[in-house]
């Protein structure tokens, strides 16, 4: 069953009662919540995802109203992962963003089967471009723009590399845009699906952009890593690209990986394999059009290794 096959009222009811089990990439996420803004977000952004009303789930997420005055006065959302509450309650108008963060947190803290890169990944012609970056580097903006221009969305936040196969999982979850990039993208890609702006979050204003149906329908196809591109948004800068030596790319990527030390030798092998098979670049941009043009001309990976 797909989420879009459930009528809006039924979706709300089932979320608030026994909950819904939604498949994203290798995971089944069971979510239970009475919040209508979460139900609306699920209906808008997860419409093409498969779901079940019962069965096994990897993560049990509950987002509920706290049992105190905050039920009525400045309403809040409390969140639970498998009955433990990892964060403090947050304002309830942020509930959908909280749900997304909670799902990221669930994957981050319980899944050591994958090397997890904090970064977006998009795919075209069989090769994936990984955009690892700290917040503020414009990785989500770039990812959303690429997706609006025909690249397949694998993930916006967590790139999961399987140590066994070296392939990247497709989660196809919504892209989280922050602050100025929301308006930029709404102008740049008016045909995409955008959610309401969520104000005053820890990261400022957030709005989500939905994954294209094609990305979601190809969720079972893991992708071959092709390029590793460290983006940097710099206002007014002209587009500049510099190939990155593999050693530097390795050091730069490994220093930011949260679960890399835990994976030990297996993590090291997965990372060297990833660097070996990708062409690596530093990419500074300010114009999305110029950035799109450069990405569209990317050659199949492998040339860089020969050049070096």
């Amino acid at each position, binding site marked *: 069953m797909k989420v879009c096959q459930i009528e809006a009222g039924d979706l709300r009811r089932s979320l608030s009662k026994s909950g819904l089990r939604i498949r994203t990439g*290798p995971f*089944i996420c069971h979510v239970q919540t009475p919040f209508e803004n979460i139900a609306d977000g699920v209906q808008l952004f997860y419409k093409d995802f498969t779901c079940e009303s*019962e*069965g*096994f*789930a*990897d993560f*049990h997420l509950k987002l509920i109203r706290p049992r105190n005055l905050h039920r009525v006065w400045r309403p809040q959302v409390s969140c639970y992962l*498998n*009955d*433990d509450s990892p964060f403090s309650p947050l304002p309830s108008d942020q509930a959908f963003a909280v749900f997304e963060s909670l799902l990221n947190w669930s994957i981050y803290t*319980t*899944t*050591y*089967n994958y090397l997890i890169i904090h970064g977006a990944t998009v795919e075209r012609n069989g090769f994936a471009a990984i955009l690892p970056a700290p917040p503020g580097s414009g990785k989500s903006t770039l990812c959303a723009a690429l997706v609006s221009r025909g690249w397949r969305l694998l993930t916006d936040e967590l790139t999961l590399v399987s140590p066994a196969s070296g392939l990247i999982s497709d989660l196809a979850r919504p892209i989280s845009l922050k602050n100025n990039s929301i308006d930029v993208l709404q102008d740049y890609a008016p045909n995409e699906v955008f959610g309401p702006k969520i104000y005053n979050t820890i990261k400022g204003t957030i709005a989500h952009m939905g994954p294209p149906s094609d990305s979601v329908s190809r969720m079972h196809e893991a992708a071959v890593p092709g390029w590793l591109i460290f983006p940097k948004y710099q206002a007014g800068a002209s587009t500049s690209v510099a190939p990155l030596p593999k050693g530097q790319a390795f050091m730069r990527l490994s220093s930011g990986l949260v679960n890399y*030390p*835990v*994976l*030990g030798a*297996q993590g090291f092998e997965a990372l060297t394999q990833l660097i070996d098979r990708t062409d690596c670049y530093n990419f500074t941009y300010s114009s999305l059009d110029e950035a799109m043009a450069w990405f569209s001309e990317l050659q199949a990976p492998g040339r860089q290794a020969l050049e070096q």
Partner: protein
Amino acid sequence: MILDPTIERALTQPQALAELKEPQWDQLLQSLRRLGLLARIQVLLAERGLLHAVPAQPRMHLESARIVADNEQRIMNWEVNRIQRALKELSTPVIFLKGAAYLIAGLSVAKGRISTDIDILVDKADLPAVETALLKHGWEHTKVDEYDQYYYRIWSHELPPLRHRERRTIIDVHHTILPLTGRCHPDPKKLLAQAINLDGSRFKILAPADMVLHSAAHAFQDGDLVRGLRDLVDLDDLLRHFGVEASFWTRLLQRGQELDLTRPLYYALRYTNLILHTPMPKAVVEQAQKHAPAWLTGAIMDRLVIHAVNDRLNGWRRFLQAFSNWALYVRQHWLRMPPILLARHLLHQMFHRQKLRTDLG
């Protein structure tokens, strides 16, 4: 009810897990995660070649937990190596305790066990030299408050915990295995005398019976079963491992007497046998029975232990469980210090926190 039947079966007959279907794994995984036993179950299944029988989705979580546990072991192995290096120049005997000892000795209890804190035991006279050597090699005090330092040094059985400034790992340096203020007084000299040397070095681990007694003392005398079921799983594994040799059991009872640990030993044998069906000679059970507490205390202790080893219970039983855990916490303090000292300690903690709050406010 003693232990949740699914958890009991998972630990005592892991082969039965091969028959579980995905939906049955759902609850079990959540419980095992909360109990800290996911990696342990992965190990039990892997050793029996049954991992492939677990459906892919739950198997992912078991394997993930194993990766985490293996990493903890790697950290601990390296830490043992660094500690040996830091204490290289001293000529004093150093005994690795608990998790580190299980790992060094290659005991099955170490597999899938999660903990990176290291405990060592040295002669009281050697404490200053050991402390100096560790401080010189990058360990730092975590308790910088004057009262904490005073409390540990005067009343405790260990130095205030030290943390390595780069690796952030913790080491507890003990001079005996139970607080000086407590009811049982195992003589550390006796432990040191029987300790086993690690291949030709000055570093040692406790003799088998002493190792079990220390684990029992930690679970039932000093700690308050804080690690819950994991404490019992440790004891069960150690007893099964060493218990193969018949002479071990006589030795265990004898050492229990010599080290003044007969009561914790009684509890350890009672609860591993009752809850995890640990095999033990009938004669040993009868001998240990002599050190059982009065009937009422025993009955209360049964209830407390049963609540402590179970995963979160539901409904009204959750309140009972919360009360039990509180009672165990009180019991732990009661066993640790005489009433006057306890009162003084609690008063200090209370006013100290108050002061901290005012300072912050």
